């Protein structure tokens, strides 16, 4: 399944007692966008709105032109990988991935083949019976990515899933996501606090500041630009 394009039209949201967020931007089908910005600028809120974990106060959200602002999370063409707790701690690797296919764990032979394939692709072959606590942090996130593979939704949202990993491991994981992106041509949005990660893996970069999307451009144009308000200050250049 290839990617969907995503459009946010005046999407507004505020936490109780907080400043309102006001998002307008779009992500092309099959693009890989890195989302950067100071903490509190609304990066996670933006992808939570896309995934349906937060309800916007007003505005519209379109996947391939279809309004989805009211849709339940499960009805959206989206898989999200969180920073932590992507796995159910008492279920083994295979079962955790299998939940992406069927919540009641009714698996056909084809499903099992597909899960095995996803495990192989993410370097988890032979780990099927391990429990999450027996895995390293990087392996746990690989399980979450394997589940995203078997779910095969057009949009993959990544909320700093590799932030806790060391630089070399982080590169490996970004390479894995990049490979999957190229093969499946899904629309990927990666929240990151490291512009180098974005340069390394993404095709596009977006900058958020104070609850607004200040820019969203191809990586090369983005990092050579000097007209993006607040970006220089954020990058320290």
């Amino acid at each position: 399944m290839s990617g969907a394009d995503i459009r946010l039209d005046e999407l507004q949201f505020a936490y109780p007692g907080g400043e309102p967020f006001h998002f307008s931007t779009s992500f092309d089908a099959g693009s890989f966008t890195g989302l950067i910005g100071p903490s509190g600028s609304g990066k996670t809120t933006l992808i939570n709105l896309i995934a349906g974990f937060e309800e916007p106060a007003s505005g519209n959200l379109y996947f391939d032109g279809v309004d989805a602002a009211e849709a339940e999370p499960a009805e959206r063409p989206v898989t999200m990988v969180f920073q932590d707790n992507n796995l159910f701690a008492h279920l083994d690797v295979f079962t955790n991935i299998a939940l992406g296919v069927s919540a009641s764990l009714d698996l056909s032979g084809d499903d099992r083949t597909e899960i095995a394939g996803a495990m192989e692709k993410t370097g988890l072959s032979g780990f099927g019976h391990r429990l999450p606590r027996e895995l390293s942090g990087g392996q746990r996130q690989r399980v979450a990515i394997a589940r995203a593979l078997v779910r095969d939704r057009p949009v993959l949202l990544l909320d700093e899933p590799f932030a806790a990993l060391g630089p070399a491991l982080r590169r490996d994981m970004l390479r894995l996501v990049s490979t999957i992106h190229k093969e499946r041509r899904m629309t990927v949005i990666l929240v990151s606090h490291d512009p180098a990660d974005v340069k390394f893996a993404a095709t596009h970069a977006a900058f958020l500041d104070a609850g607004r999307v200040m820019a969203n451009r191809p990586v090369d144009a983005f990092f050579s630009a000097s007209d993006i308000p607040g970006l220089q200050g954020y990058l320290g250049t």
Partner: protein
Amino acid sequence: MLAGLAAMVCIAGAVATPMLALVAIAPAMPDLSADYLGFVWSITRFTVLQAGLSTLLSVMAAVPLARALARQASFPGRQAILRLLTLPLALPALVVVLGIVEVWGRQGWVSTMLQQTGLTGPLNIYGLSGILIAHVFFNMALAARLLVAALEQIPPENWRLAAQLSFSSRHVFRHIEWPVIRSALPGIASLVFMLCIASFAVVLVLGGGPRATTLEVAIYQSLRFDFDPPRAVLLAALQLSLCAGLFALGGRMATDIAVMASVGKPARRPDQATAKLTDTLVIAAGLTFMAMPMLAIVLSGITAPFDVIVTQAVFWRALVTSLALALAAASLCLVMAWSLLAAQRTIMRRRIPSRAASALMSSMQAAGSLILVVPPVVIGAGWFVVLHRTGLANSAAPVVVAVVNALMALPFALRILRPAVVGQAQVHDRLCASLGLTGMQRWRLIDLPVLARSLTLAFAFAAALSIGDLGAAALFGSADFVTLPLLLLQKMGSYRSLEAAGIALLLAGFCLGLIWLAEKLKPEAAAQ
């Protein structure tokens, strides 16, 4: 560190002295006629039976209630309901029993309603059914509260995953809730079982006869009515081995008794809307069951003849005794809790604790919850026999009761204080060391402000438990030694139910007022 050792020795001494003395002065074998053995067998069986059924019913009711409360995060009055569930911990058992009789008794609300609708005759609350109702009142609340706390530990990402993977509420139960409940249940069930096996006031009033008596009550009766210490020793030994055996068997009891803990904002859950109706019904049923006896205490209490009560000298004596005991027990409890925790902190400060140190650590933790294994009535009975031998029973009574009450409150006090003493202090240790803050200066500037609220809450809780305690006081009660619960028991026994209702309301007011006051204290900024 020394204080911690001293506290541990004192606790062990307070519990072991009467036990050893009992063995030493163990008189000629008690009368072991076949009749008596039959009686002992039947009450032992009943003790285990009522505890088992109470546990089963409490837990079975608690699971749906806890699920409903955890799921409906924005249920109107949810916080108030969760607080209501913690009240039974602080309410005197005797007062609750009175409220339950008002609701479920022969002339109670339910009987009246059933008779008016012509469904059945009056209910008989005395015996197993009444004991079960009272135990479920106490322990369903406790179990539900512990389960809600466990369910709220589920990371919010799990709910988002559930939403994304389109889990139905059946899937949520299977993949998310049940694993949490299953791992929490053994601990909760063994705690409830222990509490029910050692239940005294409930069985004393609602039980009766050999068909509905527990070992605890039989110990009391053999000392107070038959004055037959050998039999009491036999029964106490039986009760003790029952508790210790179960403790060894059950192992991981939920000694982590959740007390008045504040609840964080729970996550949005995908299954909230679909389960709303059934959850509302479950919560309403639980609420009705819990609120009715409390309401009954208030309703019959406010019309009590307080003008008569205040003219009775014995009331004032009981009031002063109860308050003095509470003050002494709560102070002693705090000193013990502080000493134990401070010593544990010292041990933990070493990076790699030696084997001896970790052994010491676990024995200190065990000392804190010893009272859950050795019931207050058993300790009291031991001291009673010892002191009677030496002719000191009357003069030493208040001391023994205060000590036993302090031990009863110790697990709760430790639970309240541990995070503040061990956790917070660990955070501050290095900073204080680098700033050269030590001794009194550190205690005044750093520790006290952080601890003040927990200390007050622990003190209030210990005082409330002591004011409401019947077990230890009942053994030593005499014309010279009367506490409020003992007075209440006397009034109930002599059918002065109006006066009893007044005293019950007063007792409940004292206990809840104490907790309320302690919680009202401004939470200091340091608690963050």
